[in-house]
């Protein structure tokens, strides 16, 4: 049994403009100590998917279907209070993209760290402070005993992200979700943060779900990768496999757009056209409007995930020999992504 199993997750936002199908039938798993990368353009539903895991979706959003099992517990059935007490912070924690805004500007870094520690453990406030200094030290912040009393705006961008990571580590969670943690940072600082994640994974044996739009970053930290497009997972494979043998046309174009593996692009827009609205996504295959390989069939058939290699699945009619319209069972999808 995997540490985290997400099955057929659908998270919709009910806005006056219509229903935004941000996540629409996404499944993936993460084993203990494993790191999974979720890759996709902005708007693909990556963040929504990972926030759904922690029950962080607020009005007007709502998980309308699917299950999230963490260590065998069904998280979607937990109450807000249970999630808060038992899961968030101490079992699963999250590192957000923009540490500057993710940290409360009017409190010191220390007090925010301490609050998390006190809230999730039974440490006393003074013990929490010691722990907080220790954590800051762990994540590589110099003079932690002094800087703990500084405010977020007194930290540099990289330092802020490190502080954020310290917070994620505060209660030794078993899973850390990193939601584009390096996007806002300079390349050089990025490298440091990525190293830190590697280090954490090794020393704490923590599972990591790493959300990014940057395939280059994925290689640094991830064992496996799921590619998302417009609310759905289109391809899923171990990183090397995916990098060498991308199957889905979308993944292929993604990889083509990366000039060199190490170069970081601010915004990837590898394919012509823009992503359609998640309010009224295209019928059939959602990628068909931009897909170079699209055929008439793609309009009518929603492709299911198909085994295309070892632990490698892709949701594209290209790989559908039978071309059947059968509905894949949930178990099948899970198995396929699981191997």
């Amino acid at each position, binding site marked *: 049994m995997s540490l985290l199993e997400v099955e057929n997750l659908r998270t919709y936002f009910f806005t006056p403009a219509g229903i935004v199908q941000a996540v629409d039938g996404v499944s993936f798993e993460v084993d203990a100590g494993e790191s999974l990368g979720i890759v996709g353009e902005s708007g693909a539903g990556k963040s929504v998917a990972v926030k759904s895991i922690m029950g*962080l979706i607020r009005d007007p959003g709502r998980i309308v279907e699917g299950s999230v099992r963490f260590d065998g517990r069904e998280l979607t059935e937990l109450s807000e209070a249970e999630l808060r007490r038992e899961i*968030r*912070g101490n079992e699963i924690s999250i590192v*957000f993209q923009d540490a500057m*805004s*993710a940290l409360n*500007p*009017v409190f010191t870094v220390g007090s925010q760290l301490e609050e998390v520690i006190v809230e999730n453990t039974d440490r006393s406030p003074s013990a929490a402070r010691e722990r907080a200094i220790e954590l800051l030290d762990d994540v590589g912040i110099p003079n932690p005993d002094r800087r703990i009393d500084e405010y977020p705006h007194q930290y540099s961008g990289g330092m802020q992200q490190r502080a954020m990571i310290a917070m994620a580590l505060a209660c030794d969670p078993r899973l850390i979700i990193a939601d584009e943690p390096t996007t806002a940072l300079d390349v050089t600082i990025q490298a440091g943060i990525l190293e830190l994640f590697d280090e954490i994974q090794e020393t704490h044996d923590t599972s990591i779900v790493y959300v990014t739009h940057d395939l280059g970053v994925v290689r640094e930290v991830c064992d496996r990768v799921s590619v998302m497009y417009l609310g759905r997972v289109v391809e899923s494979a171990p990183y090397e496999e995916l990098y060498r043998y991308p199957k889905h046309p979308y993944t292929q174009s993604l990889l083509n757009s990366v000039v060199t593996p190490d170069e970081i692009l601010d915004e990837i827009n590898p394919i012509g056209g823009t992503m359609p609205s998640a309010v009224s996504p295209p019928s059939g295959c959602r990628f068909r409007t931009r897909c170079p390989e699209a055929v008439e069939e793609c309009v009518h058939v929603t492709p299911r995930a198909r085994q295309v290699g070892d632990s490698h699945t892709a949701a594209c009619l290209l790989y559908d020999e039978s071309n059947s319209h059968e509905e894949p069972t949930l178990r099948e999808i899970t198995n396929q992504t699981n191997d």
Partner: protein
Amino acid sequence: MGLLRYTIRRLLQLIPVLFGIVTLTFVMMHALPGDPVRLWLGTEPGQELADELIEAHGFDRPMHEQYVDYLVRLAQGDLGHSFVYNRPVVDLMWERMEPTLVVMGLSYLVALPVALGLGIYGAARHNRAGDHVSRFAGLAGISTPNFWLALMMIYMFSYNFGLLPATGYTSPFVDPVEAAVLLIMPVLTLATAQTALLMRMTRSSMIEEMREDYVETARAYGIPERKILLRHSFRNALLPLVTIVGLQVSTLLGGSVIVEEIFAIPGLGRLFFDSVIEQDYSVAVGVTLFFSTLFLIGVVLTDIAYAYIDPRIKYD
């Protein structure tokens, strides 16, 4: 250290504005139609008498001379002499300062907690029934003319039910119980719109803050919703609120004219109103100047509070 220097610097910045206010009010007052002497004397002053009075008060001198004279005396803390009361303006104002400040202070005291409570409640119940009710109440509050409210309250509570005295003032420092009874209606009159406005402000900035990323962070780290609301968001939402609270000084002072007139409270608002009607220049200018200064000090205090609440602001 930094705070002190900052405060002093901010206070010094007020000087040109105050100077402008003095000039403006002085010019405006002297532009009032009619001749105060004649108004004071009634319909048929002997010319000699009128001339004497005019000379005694310097009304015959060119306006720029009177102005310079006024500035010089002002610099010495002398606001001039009341024409009607034959007393120093400073004395008159000093005697009437307490009621105005008490009523204003109390309406803040009433408005702030109620507004914060309702505003936070509204934000917490955003788009639910409770929020709609408090939102509507807020709108109604700022849409009610305060003078109308005052009249209706007198009609209801004093005349119809005989519950509260219609008028009068007792210093709460002298007789707190009687003062409380007397001040209920005036304070409510001033506080209603105030509460509504602050409540709306609290609600909207709380809602805004509740959408900030740090709220999601706090949630993601298992901080209870209550704490997020009252500690994290509130602390941030205070920033715009503090500004409004500072700016409201002005509205309250304006409102004091009406409230003091209706409830017969012996304060500066009434002194101002009477002095305008009687063209008691120096009193009207004095009170206007005092109101403006009070407002400007409120703004400076706001800035300081701002700097205190928001660590991102440095005193420079």
